[in-house]
């Protein structure tokens, strides 16, 4: 093949790419926390809120799931400041752009996240909650101590999917000039006029894969811990 390949360049690109790691981790963690809380509230509202709230939350999830991420990014980056300025006279134009990325991603993340939580919650046998209530636990305690750990077992693989997808959402941040590891890679390639793109992408892929392996490892540990006492669906 007529394709130049400089294996040493892979290694050379790594430090430069890694300088974007901070941004990646910031928006990843920020989104997981904020989006996770939003998703959790949405789940709670959909499962046990009053009817009107359920309808609102249902439409919220519906619309968010229909929204392409780039559209959401622009809505948040342009719409939100204007709205806050117009309605509450709050100026957030000077905010760090990373905050807008986190807000946009959190909104995007909250909808699938809430669906993951809802399906996992519903998969726990009803009697588990009832048993907890019957020995004097409050609803909240029953949820936190009994239902949640069991629900998490089936939620974790899906949350894993979402976290890993989220981590790779750097392209979205890049559209408003936030440079994470993916963005760093792109800048390197641009500076080289497209040269060494394969090498740079291999370096990127390697870094992402390592991060993914770390996330997967953490999830595996959590899954193993939480599924104690659970019999795998396996015939003898």
């Amino acid at each position, binding site marked *: 093949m007529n394709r130049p390949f400089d294996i040493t360049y892979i290694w050379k690109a790594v430090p430069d790419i890694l300088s974007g790691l901070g941004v990646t981790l910031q928006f990843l963690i920020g989104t997981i926390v904020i989006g996770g809380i939003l998703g959790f509230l949405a789940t709670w509202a959909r499962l046990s809120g009053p009817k009107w709230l359920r309808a609102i939350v249902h439409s919220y999830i519906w619309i968010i799931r229909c929204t392409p991420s780039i*559209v959401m990014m622009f809505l948040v980056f342009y719409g939100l400041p204007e709205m806050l300025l117009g309605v509450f006279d709050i100026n957030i134009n000077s905010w760090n752009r990373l905050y807008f990325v986190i807000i946009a991603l959190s909104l995007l993340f909250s909808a699938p996240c809430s*669906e993951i939580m809802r399906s996992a919650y*519903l998969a726990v046998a009803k009697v588990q909650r009832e048993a907890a209530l019957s020995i004097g636990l409050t609803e909240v305690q029953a949820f936190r101590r009994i239902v949640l750990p069991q629900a998490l077992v089936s939620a974790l693989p*899906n949350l894993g*999917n*979402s976290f890993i997808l989220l981590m790779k959402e750097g392209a979205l941040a890049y559209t408003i000039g936030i440079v994470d590891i993916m963005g760093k890679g792109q800048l390197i390639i641009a500076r080289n006029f497209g040269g060494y793109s394969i090498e740079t*992408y291999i370096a*990127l892929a390697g870094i992402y*894969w390592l991060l993914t392996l770390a996330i997967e490892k953490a999830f595996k540990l959590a899954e193993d811990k939480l599924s104690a006492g659970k019999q795998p669906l396996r015939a003898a």
Partner: protein
Amino acid sequence: MTIDLAYVQEILILVLKGIPTTLRLAFIPLLIALPFAFLIAVARQQNIKVLARVSQIYVSFIRGTPLIVQILVMYSLLPSLLNVLVKSWGLDYDIFGINPIYYAYIVFTLNTIAILSEVFRSALETVDKRQLEAALSIGLLPVQAYSRIVIPQALVAATPNLCNSTVNLLKSTSLAFLMSVQDITAIAKTEAAFGYNYLESYLVIFIVYIVLCSLVQVFFQLLEQRLSVYKRGRKITAKSENDKQPEYFEDARKERYHAGIEEYS
């Protein structure tokens, strides 16, 4: 900053032509991925030695590498490689004449398999082992036990996540434009470039995705409702109440059965 509605309309009409491509890009990979994803999920769930290990690495690799890298590999490196092979075998086949949409199919299929295999694995976690045992004990083969008892129950927990994945897939098909595939985003962006009407174009993309994703969501919502009938239980009507005495008339019995059947079929 104003939105030119006439222009929106104009783009919208052009973009409609891209809908079949977008749908193809989403649903062909989805349909191909479903069985493979399920097999991987089962292999991992059953802990089948080599298979589980291999599929775990596969899932982790595909999920763990950026889509753009996979596109580079599939769209650029793979054809080069195939070309060299074809040439070295002395075949006369124009590799570069292959419609790039096939590379898009491959990329999206590989990704969807990885994502869905985790969806299915988690769904299988929700099924009680005793359900499988009961099915085996009445003489169903494992395949039958899975298809008739385990999967229908697992699907209840899987549908919301399948919906998430499908909607995500539908939205990420826009990346196929990198491979010069003309989906709705491609058309809208091409139109926007000339007069810098990006606002209008994104508005159109949004509108089209609202419609497409809504259809997907309606479908999965109905599916979930239908699959979870057993959890909510059948509606109990006065007719079925307390007619304790068994009736020995064949016809009456059948009628009663059909009355029951109709309600859940």
